[in-house]
């Protein structure tokens, strides 16, 4: 396959940045999208150019490090995958592909396609945990049976990989899906009840301080989420938040 790539290049956080065109040939449909970028980078390095910076690590869709806005969609045209799991067979010979970073006020660009998602970490520092000491002197793991349906729902929420696609795709740059996934996980488990009030209030407060936008229930986040995190979690967080506010 031969492709034209239009890629966002930005030297640093304070640089203005622009789209630059690249031509690439010998792309195999079996390559992953990031392997295609590897080929481009090898070309650039060997001809004396600077390679395109992009985040990636596990390349199997679980670490959440890779991002990219491809042809106007977070993680590209395929559904339920991260960019590293997107394969070139989803494109056609001769296609032009637009590649941009995840864009949001809370995710400043570091270089080219690499953005700073540390705002996500700070939301977790505010309450994304159960305050249990790691001494191991806890009760037996089977002491509290947990209804399978709730355990499964908590698991589904907990599969969020923190990639930020929800924020990138949201017209308001809202992080509600991300934050609600963690709030839901703990809200659905008996172990999470003790701190439920503080957790939701603190996490939401931090989310707002980081500059994420509000949720207007458009649902784009759910569509683009590589892990299929459900909008139901946002509803659950809103309930938790309301309960906590009334108590508070």
């Amino acid at each position, binding site marked *: 396959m031969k492709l034209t790539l239009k890629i966002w290049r930005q030297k640093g956080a304070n640089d203005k940045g622009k789209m630059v065109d690249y031509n690439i040939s010998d792309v195999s449909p079996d390559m992953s999208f990031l392997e295609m970028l590897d080929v481009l980078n090898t070309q650039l390095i060997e001809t004396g150019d600077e390679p395109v910076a992009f985040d990636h690590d*596990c390349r*199997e869709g679980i670490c959440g490090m890779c991002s990219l806005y491809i042809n106007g969609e977070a993680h590209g045209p395929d559904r339920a995958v991260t960019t590293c799991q997107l394969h070139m067979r989803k494109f056609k010979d001769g296609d032009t592909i637009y590649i941009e970073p995840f864009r949001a006020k809370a995710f400043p660009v570091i270089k080219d396609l690499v953005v700073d998602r540390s705002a996500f970490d700070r939301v977790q*520092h505010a309450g994304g945990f159960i305050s249990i000491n790691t001494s191991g002197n806890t009760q037996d*793991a089977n002491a509290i049976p947990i209804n399978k349906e709730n355990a499964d729902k908590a698991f589904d929420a907990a599969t969020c990989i923190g990639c930020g696609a929800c924020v990138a795709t949201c017209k308001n740059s809202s992080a509600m899906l991300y934050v609600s996934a963690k709030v839901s996980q703990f809200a659905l488990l008996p172990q999470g009840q003790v701190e439920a009030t503080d957790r939701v209030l603190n996490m939401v407060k931090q989310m707002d301080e980081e500059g994420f936008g509000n949720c207007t229930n458009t649902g784009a986040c759910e569509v683009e989420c590589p892990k299929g995190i459900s909008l139901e979690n946002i509803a659950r967080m809103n309930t938790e938040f309301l309960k906590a506010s009334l108590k508070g």
Partner: protein
Amino acid sequence: MATLDSKTPKGPIADKWTNHKNKINLVNPANKRLIDVIVVGTGLAGGSAAATLAELGYNVKAFCFQDSPRRAHSIAAQGGINAAKNYQGDGDSTYRLFYDTVKGGDYRSREANVYRLAEVSANIIDQCVAQGVPFARDYGGLLDNRSFGGVLVSRTFYAKGQTGQQLLLGAYSAMNRQIGRGKIKMYNRHEMLDVVIVDGKARGIIARNLITGEIERHSAHAVVLGTGGYGNVFFLSTNAMGSNVTAAWKAHKKGAYFANPCYTQIHPTCIPVSGDHQSKLTLMSESLRNDGRIWVPKKIEDTLAIREGKLKPTEIAEEDRDYYLERRYPAFGNLVPRDVASRAAKERCDAGFGVNSTGEAVYLDFASAIDRYGKEQATIKGLDTNDAALVKKLGQEVVKNKYGNLFQMYEKIVDENPYETPMMIYPAVHYTMGGIWVDYNLMTTVPGLYAIGEANFSDHGANRLGASALMQGLADGYFVLPYTIGDYLADDIRTGPISTETPEFDEAEKSVRTTIDKLVNNNGTKSVDYFHKRLGKIMWNKVGMSRNEQGLKEAIEEISALRAEFYNDVRVPGEANEFNEELAKAGRVADFLELGELFAKDALNRTESCGGHFREESVELDGPQKGEALRNDKEFAYVAAWEYKGEPKDAVLHKEDLEFNDIELKQRSYK
């Protein structure tokens, strides 16, 4: 050649850990506030250690090269975590987990460490549930288990195919609590480039800020490495792209012995290589072997027809299939340990029965599991068990519930539907049992420098059993290191803060800068990946699944030559003082080029076959075990710990003799 002292406590094996904990020095809570600890790496081992040390009161500085601690590669572990809970009442016990792990490791691990691991395993599950880790549960609300290779009980706890993710997020949440309290200072996107030794003790690190390129000095009273394994020396592996040996290798160069580098786990169930562009390999969890059956055609003409696309695997009759693991190992069948399964796949493919175009793939087939589950569901629901379409549909639903994400991952990569046609798999480099040598306290040969998790060598011998890596990472980080490090730090309560303005820090920083400048100004013609791929090919072909004297000698020469070529011709674009991924990669590959040679040297020294290390010269020639790996306990029941002496070829061997008092050394039979 010196003998190493493991400092294993005396007494009966079941009491060693308890007695040791009772006797070691403690640091009182007020004094812990005066002590700084650096933890490098935030995977299961590093993350859990950082959280626990901070909770105990130490001031922790944690480092990771990723943009968040949550992205460490432990996140990709799929299948599960072992624990001797005996919830299933199937005869499990601490002793049995200990026994299985030592046997699985082909009697090359340290007995006392493994017993301790088995002993604390049950605590891990309690701890994680209390943290909100959503393990799989049954309809009664209790925890579910499954079975993994090399064992005869169900002791593996899991969260679908994302167990590593859930456990890591648990450790990450424990870290977040401490970061929020200010007890952990987190340094994301930082790479450790050297250990600083002051008066013979590890007192800090030199790190590069990967965003700005700045070289930073960080001091502490002790340094803990939870920096993972070195499988990426093969270029293609199931490791993340960034997984590297740099921290461990720098520690080695500063005096930490490197133990058993040749012990590498080649995992039997990975998606086969599809072409030269391939950047990494994807694992299909071992848990799939609970239900999947591995086979190749019996007839060579069927194999050829499959490769040419003239025949589909589903069209091959049952009697024309060779379920070679069930044939060779009737007792364990498809659940033999990983090293055995990998070699068996290679044997069939080398004999010409590989089922894809490259001849390097075997089938992992779920048809009989789908049928079995389907009939069970039909019976439960009172439906017709003879309705084939219905049975298949019901069976597929069960399989989807158990392994859905893995099947989806497979389909995305290979573009085939594994519910309808068997998966194709082939062995790939996955885990390294070798690593930095540590004593019973997890301290390396450098005082104050510790290694935990995959980065050390101690618990898995020459082969790791499935679901034991997560167990070891968390055991080391939550329950072992936080105790044992106190014994060392008890001497440091009056030391006060460690200054970074000392000649030792000056020198370490200078050496880091020199290396970086050399790479950036090299102006060669080839990319870093070019060299990394070539190194990987040498490793895979000559130091891979089977090894022989001639190949290993060639590998040593070739790697040494490649290293020289690398320094001569590598091209690293960009500058040192900016975000520069090629520069970071170049530093990592430079270290792999040294480690690779030591790896081959270690493999050459060990003329026996054991676990993942298979020497073609050492096989059983007769009897029921004919063709199986032949261990040599008389000459090789030791840990090979290498001391750095300038070049890998000059490394000096030190031995730690392995004693087995509680387990009889036996031929490892899974037949």
